[in-house]
């Protein structure tokens, strides 16, 4: 590759020597000849295609962004109120590299508990991050730098960007069984076998709740067994918690898996995001935390996380962090937030029921039990890529080709249309 570039360069020199200084001229050659168009992002590309579709019937059940029953994006009341309160109060000075201290404090309470001893003992290295993506990436880079021989075990399937993140961090990936296509549920045995067979001290990526894209979560009892096996194998558990509050409607309940691991003495890592549960998608606000042995180690680890952030973006953005700390720091606003999260989660649960019942009423030959068993924003429908393509081309229904339906995009207005379309493309299977 270097040879080709050198040859390309010398060709250009020859071309350019004929007129080294001139006015604006078109270059017949470019440095970028070898740059190919990147493939469209499988998730974000769906919305792009949706936006470009002129059909009045179009439905977007692609990206996981909450919509109200009118299909409109929602800004939570608690967020609007927080914004009113913070307007004009900030000097917009740089946040520290680790972000807003107040925001991080409140965020840790959500994950570790309001009275966590780990927080009291200052054992958690935590920094504000660029939402969940940024938290995962910081952790992946940290893992690469300080455990250079390690790999990451990623569930099958997972959010597609997980693969990109650890790949760009140059951490080799392995997979573990997770989704069971036959039952459209958890392949618990496969999961436990893979955990057992992984070399001792392996790093595992776990979805704390509302697994993306399947909506399939382990039961509490299964989490306890997973935790015990992790202990026996001395594995490191990294939790991606992007949907706290969105699974059951109760943030404390949704953090159960994490609390089990903490009780059992694991030193875990957590990525948290406010994109969905506070509707702060575009603000990019989240948090990465790593539970350490003691305060000294936490200070050290935090300094290294900051060292990774500095050459990536220097310090994180303020606005979203201010919204979060304003809401969580005020009992009234926090209580309003909890109510609003429950409303969102309940609407989704309601739509699951309606979708399932609609399909059953249409006389579908298939079982749609999984639609109500799965939890969180997504339903792993079991539709094949070809069926998904038909939904798009014939019905202008947009979803990712793995058959993942964002239930947040389903409304009383479109659920009938959606059920009908799904029935049409699956009735002969």
């Amino acid at each position, binding site marked *: 590759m270097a040879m080709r570039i050198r040859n390309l*360069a010398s060709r250009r020199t020859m071309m350019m020597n004929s007129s080294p200084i001139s006015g604006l001229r078109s270059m017949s050659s470019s440095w970028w000849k070898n*740059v190919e168009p990147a493939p469209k992002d499988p998730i974000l590309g769906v919305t792009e295609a949706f936006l470009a579709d002129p059909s009045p019937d179009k439905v977007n059940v692609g990206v996981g962004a909450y919509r109200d029953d009118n299909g409109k994006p929602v800004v939570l009341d608690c967020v609007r109120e927080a914004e009113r309160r913070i307007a004009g109060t900030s000097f917009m000075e740089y946040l520290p590299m680790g972000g807003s201290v107040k925001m991080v404090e409140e965020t840790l309470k959500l994950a570790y508990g309001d009275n966590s001893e780990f927080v009291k003992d200052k054992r958690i290295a935590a920094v504000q991050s660029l939402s969940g993506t940024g938290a995962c990436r910081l952790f992946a880079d940290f893992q690469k730098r300080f455990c250079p021989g390690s790999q990451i075990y990623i569930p099958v399937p997972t959010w597609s960007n997980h693969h990109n993140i650890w790949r760009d961090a140059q951490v080799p990936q392995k997979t573990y069984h997770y989704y069971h296509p036959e039952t459209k549920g958890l392949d618990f045995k496969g999961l436990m076998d893979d955990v057992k067979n992984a070399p001792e001290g392996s790093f595992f990526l776990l979805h704390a709740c509302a697994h993306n894209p399947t909506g399939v979560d382990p039961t509490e009892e299964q989490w306890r067994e997973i935790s015990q096996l992790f202990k026996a194998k001395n594995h490191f558990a990294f939790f991606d918690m992007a949907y706290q509050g969105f699974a059951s409607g109760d943030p404390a309940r949704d953090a159960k898996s994490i609390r089990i691991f903490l009780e*059992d*003495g694991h030193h875990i890592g957590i990525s948290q995001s406010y994109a969905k549960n506070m509707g702060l998608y575009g603000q990019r606000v989240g948090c990465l935390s790593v539970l350490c042995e003691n305060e000294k180690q936490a200070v050290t680890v935090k300094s290294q996380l900051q060292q990774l952030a500095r050459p990536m973006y220097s*310090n994180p953005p303020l606005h979203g962090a201010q919204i979060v700390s304003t809401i969580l720091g005020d009992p009234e606003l926090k209580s309003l937030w909890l109510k609003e999260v429950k409303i969102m989660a309940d609407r989704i649960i309601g739509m699951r029921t309606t979708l399932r019942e609609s399909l059953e009423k249409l006389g579908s030959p298939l079982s749609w039990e999984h639609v109500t068993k799965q939890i969180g924003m997504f339903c792993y429908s079991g539709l094949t890529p070809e069926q998904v393509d038909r939904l798009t081309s014939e019905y202008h229904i947009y979803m990712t080709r793995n058959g993942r339906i964002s239930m947040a995009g389903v409304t009383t207005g479109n659920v009938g249309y959606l059920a009908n379309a799904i029935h049409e493309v699956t009735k002969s299977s």
Partner: protein
Amino acid sequence: MASSMISLGSTSLLPRDINKDKLKLGTSGSNPFPRTKSLSRVTMSVAAKPSRFEGITMAPPDPILGVSEAFKADTNELKLNLGVGAYRTEELQPYVLNVVQKAENLMLERGDNKEYLPIEGLAAFNKATAELLFGAGHPVIKEQKVATIQGLSGTGSLRLAAALIERYFPGAKVLISAPTWGNHKNIFNDAKVPWSEYRYYDPKTIGLDFDGMIQDIKEAPEGSFILLHGCAHNPTGIDPTPEQWVKIADVIQEKNHIPFFDVAYQGFASGSLDEDAASVRLFAERGMEFFVAQSYSKNLGLYAERIGAINVVCSSADAATRVKSQLKRIARPMYSNPPVHGARIVANVVGDAAMFGEWKAEMEMMAGRIKTVRQELYDSLVSKDESGKDWSFILKQIGMFSFTGLNKAQSDNMTNKWHVYMTKDGRISLAGLSMAKCEYLADAIIDSYHNVS
């Protein structure tokens, strides 16, 4: 930067750093797995096994951001913070631009939603930022030859470009000025792009070592990337003259290098947004392909909102499209899509003629205050210093910073004796200086220069 091999899967139960009140090992026969405080039942404590992160050492404090922290801790009432490059008013207060407040109020009233931006950022912002840089209607924009994507201020934009260089020009080197902003090296290091320095600052003249710069650029392997500060060089404040820029462009073209501009202070050098873009526009006129990273931290006071852009000027619209798609591919696993707040503010300000005009006026005011304070500092130095030393370099330098020529020991004296906080390379941020403090600062500089070696 510390890095260590941690051995995984250790079966030893003897951690190196035993938390003594938690664990007692050995032949005493006591339970090696005592209760931890929070549990109501006895469980196995995983603290028995050594931590994966045992060998990690403390990262060094940031040389720039650490200065402000030291300043905050100082209780002396004469203290002066000339460390980080953040604009201050004459009263030494942070300044939120009027247009920014207006834009935020507009946004609040409109009740904009908070949906994800596309990976490449806010379209209105990308359009505005490219036009600000090249001039609206510039051929590279009209012909769609610029790939622009919103980035996390200057740092994030530089990082995206560095990652693109690593991916598509493996082995290619970036040449950075000696000295340059400290974080440039960190960015290229973490992106795994090799770099070396070209001569820039001449301590003898406290000016530009132009011949050294040209020579080093000439001697670099063909096809190297040359990192240039578009205006208001950080940390020196020393910019090439227009004639020198022409020669720099010549030698870069001659050697088939790729220019890479860092434009963090557009508007802050001369006070004019257009004038400060002259170097970039010169290169665009040459039909060259090059990178430009932009930041709105200083010129719109949007430090905290992390708003900037990376622009790649290509020779064709097709190349620009492909390059843009690959930049997106780098951004997605870093942060997915950029933060919306700062982008909206910029788009609102630049997109409204009245607000844009108001911004230009505020920009002139901020740059004007710095120029005035430069003059006042120079006048104080000349009137107080009896040695006849030539302090005119203060007036020749431009932008937020001045390279005083003080060495590390002298800079330490500034801090330890005079409570003047600055970076150890002798850089002072004039944005943190008031007219009222010029005489005091002059005294400190004269003392440090003459009485400390």
